[in-house]
């Protein structure tokens, strides 16, 4: 009896230790995110020193009009956008990996981003994307596109409730390619303004351009809904990892959970794509690295993934707009350079572990 009590206490203590580790990680990520935002706001063609920023934020000094315009119209919206996009992509990657029971799933790889892009393109070519209603509709169409493509890929790739790596990647690749090129097709139908073409081209490259504050507000709301919706799903994804039969037996409604994950994951993908277009591999790298630190428990992974994704894409985007200044690199190019090799490394590892 005494032993039993001691053991339970030890278990709770260890649980406490893990809790502490998670808290440190979350604290560290939050602090880094704030710091990175401040530093990124100062970086660019016009440098604004960090001290000036902090002072003006505290009302101790004022910025020049030029500095103010650069900060509030150009840099800060972009910084916020990068954080939102990174967070959305990473969390949807985490959800899709749980849903597909496959650590290689990612909104880009499985074609969900492609679907969102096609949906969004329809919006851009039919409606003026600059207006709030127009952007809202575009985001909604992106959401519909994301759902459509993931349902299609899921249906194509699943074999007896499992999605083998090979069929997931092939189905995702095919659907994603078809959808992306359908967007080009829309472009040729676009007569006139050229506005749509410009937007589409930046989406296909994965560029976070100059979002307006209303656009950011819409995407923030979508991200908020997506994150809040993920919270009750995280534990279910743990149980779903045991397989459909086990999860059903333990009282999880598998079908409902799947539908919920597809909806929430698609909202997050659509939010990210509406701002940043096709940004590859972020949803793959971030959950994977965190899984190495925290283990596979989705409940613990969820908040860490949201923060780390925001931080990662903010850093990547800041690098993309400064390393070859005054020219800018689409951040999608950068994530592809970082993520591509990482993905191949995982695939190589998966061949040994998952497929064997």
């Amino acid at each position, binding site marked *: 009896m005494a032993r*039993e009590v001691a*053991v*339970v206490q030890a*278990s*709770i203590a260890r*649980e406490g230790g893990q809790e502490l580790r998670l808290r440190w990680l979350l604290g560290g990520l939050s602090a880094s995110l704030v710091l990175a935002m401040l530093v990124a706001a100062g970086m660019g063609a016009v440098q604004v020193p960090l001290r000036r920023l902090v002072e003006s934020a505290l009302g101790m000094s004022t910025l020049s009009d030029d500095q103010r315009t650069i900060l509030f119209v150009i840099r800060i919206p972009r910084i916020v956008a990068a954080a939102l996009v990174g967070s959305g992509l990473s969390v949807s990657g985490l959800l899709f990996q749980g849903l597909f*029971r*496959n*650590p290689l799933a990612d909104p880009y790889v499985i074609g969900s981003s492609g679907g969102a892009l096609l949906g969004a393109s329809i919006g851009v070519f039919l409606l003026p994307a600059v207006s709030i209603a127009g952007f809202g509709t575009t985001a909604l169409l992106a959401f519909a596109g994301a759902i459509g493509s993931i349902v299609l890929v899921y249906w194509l790739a699943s074999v007896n409730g*499992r999605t083998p790596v090979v069929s997931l990647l092939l189905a995702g690749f095919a659907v994603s390619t078809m959808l992306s090129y359908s967007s080009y097709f829309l472009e040729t139908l676009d007569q006139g303004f050229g506005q749509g073409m410009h937007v589409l081209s930046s989406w296909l490259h994965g560029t976070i351009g100059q979002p307006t504050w209303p656009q950011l507000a819409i995407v923030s709301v979508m991200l908020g809904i997506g994150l809040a919706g993920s*919270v*009750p799903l995280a*534990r279910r994804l*743990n*149980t779903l*990892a*045991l*397989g459909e*039969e*086990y999860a*059903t*037996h*333990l*009282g*999880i409604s598998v079908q409902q959970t799947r539908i919920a994950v597809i909806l929430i994951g698609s909202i997050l993908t659509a939010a990210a794509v509406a701002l940043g277009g096709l940004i590859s591999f972020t949803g793959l790298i971030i959950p994977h690295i965190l*899984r190495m630190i925290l*283990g*596979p*428990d989705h*409940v613990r992974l969820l908040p860490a993934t949201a923060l780390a994704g925001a931080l990662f894409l903010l850093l990547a985007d800041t690098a993309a707009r400064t390393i070859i200044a005054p020219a800018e690199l689409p951040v999608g190019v950068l994530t592809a350079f970082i993520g591509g090799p990482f993905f191949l490394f995982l695939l190589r590892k998966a061949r040994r572990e*998952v497929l064997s």
Partner: protein
Amino acid sequence: MPLLEFGHINFGYGSGELFHDLNGWIFANDCIALVGRNGVGKTTLLRLAAGTLAPQSGEVRLKQSVLRSMKQREIAKLVAFVPQNVDLPFSFTAEQFVEQGRTPFLKMFGGLGVADRKAIERAMGLTDTWSLRFRVFNELSGGERQRVKIALGLAQQPQLLLLDEPMQHLDIGRQFEMIDLIGTLRREGIAILASMHDLALIEGVFTSVWLLSPDEPMRQGSPREMLHPAVLEDAFNCPPRHRPRLVERTRNRMELAI
């Protein structure tokens, strides 16, 4: 009062009928081995008992409530199903795996409480898997994995444990460990229904045998009655020329049991 009752069950996949008017009762202290040839429906019967499949007609009753009218969460608090194979895509530890057994007890947003921790620790203690708790489930040996799976079932604090081929892929030493574990579970007052492939391991462990054969009513009896060459030859469709081999095996069994 039976813990679980199969009443006039009819069930089949597609057009073929697997069970016709199947009846059976499981009482609190029963330890039943479910035997029969491949494809006869052993796993299906376990799934019917777990509530993950529903009969086409007839009713499964759990403590006199109709199973199909119960919520799966409520069923899972009384009946635990331990499947034959588990295929985990991520590297969960043994403890995280066993924690899933508390799923039916958790609220929508709630985490594990002290009572849940205690149930997990006790389940892992009984199955002698506490020392494996930080190990990655997928890296455990077959015998260890089998015990951890049973620990997940025990974390549900069930009154009835359904085991699908618990002895499969175990070497003889691990089979003896499993026999000891089943003895421990019986002392805990948990009823057991286990599908068994290896008839040699039934006697002295299980209190009764349910024998399924195609197109015939299920037969029930003590291991001594049911593991009789004449009964088995028919049920397992053994060619007559192998009768001496079958007799020898079952005779050995009898001698071992004495």
